[in-house]
């Protein structure tokens, strides 16, 4: 079976599961990472290297966002994005068995 990425594998039925703990991330037919949890907060959550611009340089709020496996808390997507933007990064991959 192929996979989506380092963290997201396909279940037998084509749904998405966490490749580390097997937790269900999206059932068949559900959108990408539908069952992931989301954590948001100050940009500094990304680490000491990401600083909120002071003084601010844009007139929009930006935030730290992270999608997590609901079972093991593995980070599936980590980004700094505009608070107003949803679904900044998505994927939709066809499940496929590997070639011989």
């Amino acid at each position, binding site marked *: 079976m*192929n*996979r*989506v*990425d*380092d*963290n997201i594998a396909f279940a037998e039925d084509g749904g998405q599961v966490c490749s*580390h703990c097997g937790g269900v991330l999206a059932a068949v037919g559900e959108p990408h*990472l*539908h*069952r*992931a*949890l*989301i*954590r948001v*907060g100050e*940009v500094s959550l*990304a*680490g*000491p*290297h*990401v*600083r909120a*611009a*002071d*003084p*601010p*340089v*844009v*007139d*929009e709020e*930006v935030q730290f966002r*992270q*999608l*997590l496996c*609901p079972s*093991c*808390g*593995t*980070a*599936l997507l*980590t*980004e*700094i*994005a*505009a608070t*107003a*933007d*949803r*679904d*900044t*990064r*998505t*994927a*939709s*991959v*066809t*499940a*496929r068995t*590997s*070639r011989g």
Partner: protein
Amino acid sequence: MPVTPVPGSEKFSYRPTPAAQLREIAGEHVRLHTVDAAEVAAVDPLTYEVVRHRLESITHEMGEAIKRMSGSVIVTDCNDFNFAIMDEIGDEVEIGLYNTALCAAIDMAVKWTLEHRAANPGIKPGDMFLCNDPWVGGGLHQNDTALFAPLFVGDELFAWTGAVAHQIDLGGVSPGSWSVKSTDVFWESLPTPPVKIVEGGVLRSDIEDVWLRRSRMPALVGLDLRAKIGANHMAQERLNELVDRYGASTVKAVMRRILDNAEQRVRAKLAAIPDGEWSAVAYQDSAREGDETLYRIVCTLRKQGEGLHFDFTGTDPQADGLINCTHAGVRGGITPAVLTALCGDVPWAPAGVFRCIEITSEPGTINDCTFPAGISKGSVASAWATLNVVQECLGGMLDTHEDSRPNVTGVCLGSWDLALLAGLDQRGAPFVSMVGDAMAGGFGARSDLDGVDTGGMAGAPMGRIPDVEMTEFSYPMLYLWRREESDSGGPGRFRGGVGGSSCFVLHRSAAPAVHLVVSGGGKAIPQSSGISGGYPANTQLDLAIRGADVRAKLAAGHIATSLDEIVGQREVMPPHLETVLGEEDVYYMAWQGGGGYGDPLLRDPAAVAADLRAGKVTAGAAADVYGVVTWPGSGTVDADGTDERRRTLRADRLASATPRSERSPR
């Protein structure tokens, strides 16, 4: 105030015309050499390889020649130039290993010339055309100047050669030709559509004068013009030898085969990868000095079977500022990413590769702007951001299959941190200089390897930054430090490459201050995104410390090794600013690293310990982001402590998280 469209400028807004149509249009006024499918099939493996290798060799020779002949450090060191061999209709067959983004534009200029100049003034043997109009093609902003020439065999137009290089100054309001206050192209260098500057082998002095008249540094621009003319001549000599030896049909057949080959190889790779769709966004903060808008370039990559479709629907409309790029910039953002992701072992024949690519992009958007939007920074703003978002999407695609996974890379050096200084040097002579250090950005992490630390930028496989001593010799500067910056690499299971910082003061300038132009994005939102859960790299930070006590401290035998040690008035730079740097000021610029791959809590703890020892991460990041605990004395990993810390961090994450489905839709 939004830019008002200019009627009459439509003819210069180019999107490459399909081959058959182009042949028909140009064929009315110039005889185009071609071969049929049978001739292409008839080339034997030996001849194919010998001619192919020769074409590659010629391109390499031309690139090296341009580098040696150029007077521009941006060419020689930053490698912001390239050379291409194209067939009779401008399809690129071989390109050099320099700035690959430029090769997404030079073919456009050739094709436009075939359509619009074949009748009047005509395209004849010994002609060469000059172009720096990014709407037509040739380059990604006005500084990129293309010089391309038709090669005739008998009376048939057989091929084109083309050289393009960034020129140091071509006019406009500010030195270097990008003005941070620009609201439209009329603030900037004048875009010049293709003009026949060499006619029948003779460089036309009148056109050369018109060309150089706009520049603050006409001598250097003239030098580069000759370098490009020379390279085109040399290449055509070599191509003529090749045609004499093997015959025009055979050489053309090989060119066709190279394109077919590149196409087939890329399609084969794509076929092996699962179908899917990946979308991402690249942000840019601010379009010009004083602008506080956040801009988005949105890309959805759809792969079906053997083709790639880059759809930029959702991208912001063009801005009043200097960061827009033309359609050449969309292609210029795609080309380096595709070449590095899919063509590491495939001929770099862009025309063949592009057969696998479809682009949906709306004119009037920030990376496909209409005239007269400002574009002077386009190459390192919207085109660069396009490259980022394309690289992210491609990374997602490649990650799905074990064969393609080795070519995944997180985003490299998310933006160009420009510091341009102008003033009088230590000898009293005027100078203009761009601080090249910022090119040493971190490369994105791979799926099985960290990103290269201070490795460079994604659009140029080579390039270099000057030694500190060369900079201090040439310009009135003294560096307190130039170093890698801990933590600047995006955390991940594999760490993004670190970027670095330079901190310097004015030293022995004949004038008490220098002009400073700052232009760098990635301050609100870091532009080197991570992949597969990987964290982004650092936000960019540029600041001046005014009225600093550095000189007194130096006199007292102390050199600051951190910003905290420098006492003075901190002025954080916005994304664009024109200002000055005085004798009592310190300037600090910290450029970006590369995005990480995978969850940092999954990184091998021994690798984190090694990173700590090597200064790539700080203790704080090791503990809080990577969740690794080490023994205080030895620095070796405390396995139990790490397990527990990581368990805690995961629990903390989950505790502060909510289900996605509970968030209101956009």
